[in-house]
């Protein structure tokens, strides 16, 4: 369980995270989605007690991370793939972390095996590929068998087999009742991995909830119609709550009406249809429209705020 309340982080006059509040529930995989520079990594560093919030609070399993008696048992984090000394072997890196919590050596071997690093555990980290670094970072995060996992871009640099492995891993961890919070800018990855979404743009939460709900809330389903008499059909569609656009001649995209209704109208007026297809907005479309809005919203609001102050 991760709870943030009015969490804000400013660096000089740049606001990286702007008063966000959210709750990440245990037992599910929550995706933290946003473009680069949106504040994902800053938020995760604040959760792990590495960066101090300018204002606001964030707790892990009910307490600020640093206040836990056994921090690595509460939360494990992969914050960036290279949070390790390149001159140390993978096993030594894990041993230094395990020692602080008196975690037995058997657990070090366990996470090495779990992350598929057995054959390279004795090699120095400096020679690791990005993917191997990610696996070692995940091994470090898993070391304390934590109740909460925080993974920043975990699939970054992984090969397809590794991506599958991360997906299965986070799923099984969530099914065990743990809290899994992972960030990504890969929307398609989120669609396959996450149950819940937290969308962030320019330091603000833009949307939160189950994946499908977030997508639906942004852009409802559309109906695509191809008809020789498209213009006639567009005029017949009831005006209230329906938006009609025509990306090219003979083609309509209707929002706020379902395919059956469009078919009824066409049939009643004898309009021939060449295509009638319902389309669900993809995560990418939802994401683009969300973050686009955030840009517009931001500039508008700052303008409005200035005007109001005068």
């Amino acid at each position, binding site marked *: 369980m991760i709870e943030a309340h009015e969490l804000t982080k400013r660096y000089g006059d740049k606001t990286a995270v702007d008063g966000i509040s959210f709750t990440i529930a245990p037992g599910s995989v929550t995706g933290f989605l946003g473009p680069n520079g949106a504040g994902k990594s800053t938020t995760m560093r604040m959760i792990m007690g590495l960066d*101090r919030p300018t204002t606001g609070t964030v707790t892990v399993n009910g307490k600020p991370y640093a206040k836990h008696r056994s921090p690595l048992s509460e939360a494990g*984090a992969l914050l960036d793939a290279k949070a390790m000394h390149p001159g*140390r072997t993978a096993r030594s890196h894990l*041993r230094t972390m395990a020692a602080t919590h008196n975690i037995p050596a058997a657990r070090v071997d366990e996470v090495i095996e779990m992350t598929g690093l057995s054959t390279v555990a004795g090699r120095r980290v400096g020679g690791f590929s990005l993917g191997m670094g990610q696996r070692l970072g995940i091994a470090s995060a898993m070391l304390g068998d934590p109740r909460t996992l925080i993974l920043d871009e975990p699939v970054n640099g992984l090969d397809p087999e590794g991506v599958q492995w991360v997906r299965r891993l986070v799923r099984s961890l969530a099914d065990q009742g743990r809290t899994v919070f992972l960030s990504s800018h890969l929307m398609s990855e989120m669609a396959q991995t996450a149950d819940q979404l937290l969308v962030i743009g320019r330091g603000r939460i833009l949307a939160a909830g189950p994946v499908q709900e977030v997508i639906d809330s942004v852009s409802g389903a559309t109906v695509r119609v191809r008809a020789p008499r498209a213009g006639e059909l567009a005029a017949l569609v009831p005006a209230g709550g329906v938006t009609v656009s025509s990306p090219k001649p003979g083609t309509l995209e209707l929002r706020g009406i379902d395919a059956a209704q469009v078919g009824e109208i066409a049939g009643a007026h004898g309009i021939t249809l060449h295509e009638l297809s319902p389309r669900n907005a993809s995560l990418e479309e939802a994401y683009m429209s969300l973050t686009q809005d955030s840009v517009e919203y931001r500039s508008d609001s700052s303008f409005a705020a200035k005007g109001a102050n005068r």
Partner: protein
Amino acid sequence: MSTTVTAPAPVRTPSPRPVLPARPSFVGVLRGEWIKLLSLRSTWWILAVTIALITGISLAVAYSLDAMAADPAQASSLATTNGADVVSGGFQLGMVSVSVLGALLITGEYSTGMIRSTLAAVPTRVPVLAAKAIAVAVLTVAVSAVSIAVSYLVTMPQLGTYDLVPALDQARTWQVFGGTVFFLVAAALFALGVGTLLRSSAGAITVALTVLLLLPGILSFIRVGWVETIVDYLPLPAAGAFLGGNQGSLSSAGSGLTATTGVLVVAAYALVPLVAGAVVMRRRDA
């Protein structure tokens, strides 16, 4: 054909209490820092270089006694030369390498990003710095003791020629050896403290070596009262006060301090940057 596929309901077990035995302790943090130190090749290189420098210089000093003996003008300084000073004669170069060790212990973590793993494991932070200080102090004591022991052995034949082999039953001998070890530990801790404050390897090593090595040499040319007072309170001249620097020995800088004041000044150089580093480390973003 209509087949209804029902996805099996995911099994939700209650949040598991950690079954893994994980009990953080300061001893554990100390063990972690110890593993960190010993698991880097650079540490072993620095240790080897330290021993080589200290014994190499002491051997060279021992053989320069031949030249002193041959030159009538220097015969008097040969008479006042203390064998213990010859044995520990290479400590100034040893100081350079142990301060690099001390600085890298913390700046290496900042430059590589390891610090984020370290502070995630020990979010209260200050125990990490305390453990680093203890680990580097223990290692410095070990490497200085080994260096002096090796120096003692390799210079013994040459010092024997002039009847200068330091007597191990003499307090003076142990004051020099003990003082040398103490000074090297202080140099390593000073560099660790400066490294914690600056977080940059190049910056920390530059500052540490400037204060430890360069300033005493450069400022000693300035014959102005207050500058001479400053020089007295720099680490190396202050160490001269308790290393009992006689004329002719490498540690002599004509210190104006008493031995006790010298010890306190050197201790302050070790502790003040460390305490300041701890305060800053607690507050700063990692």
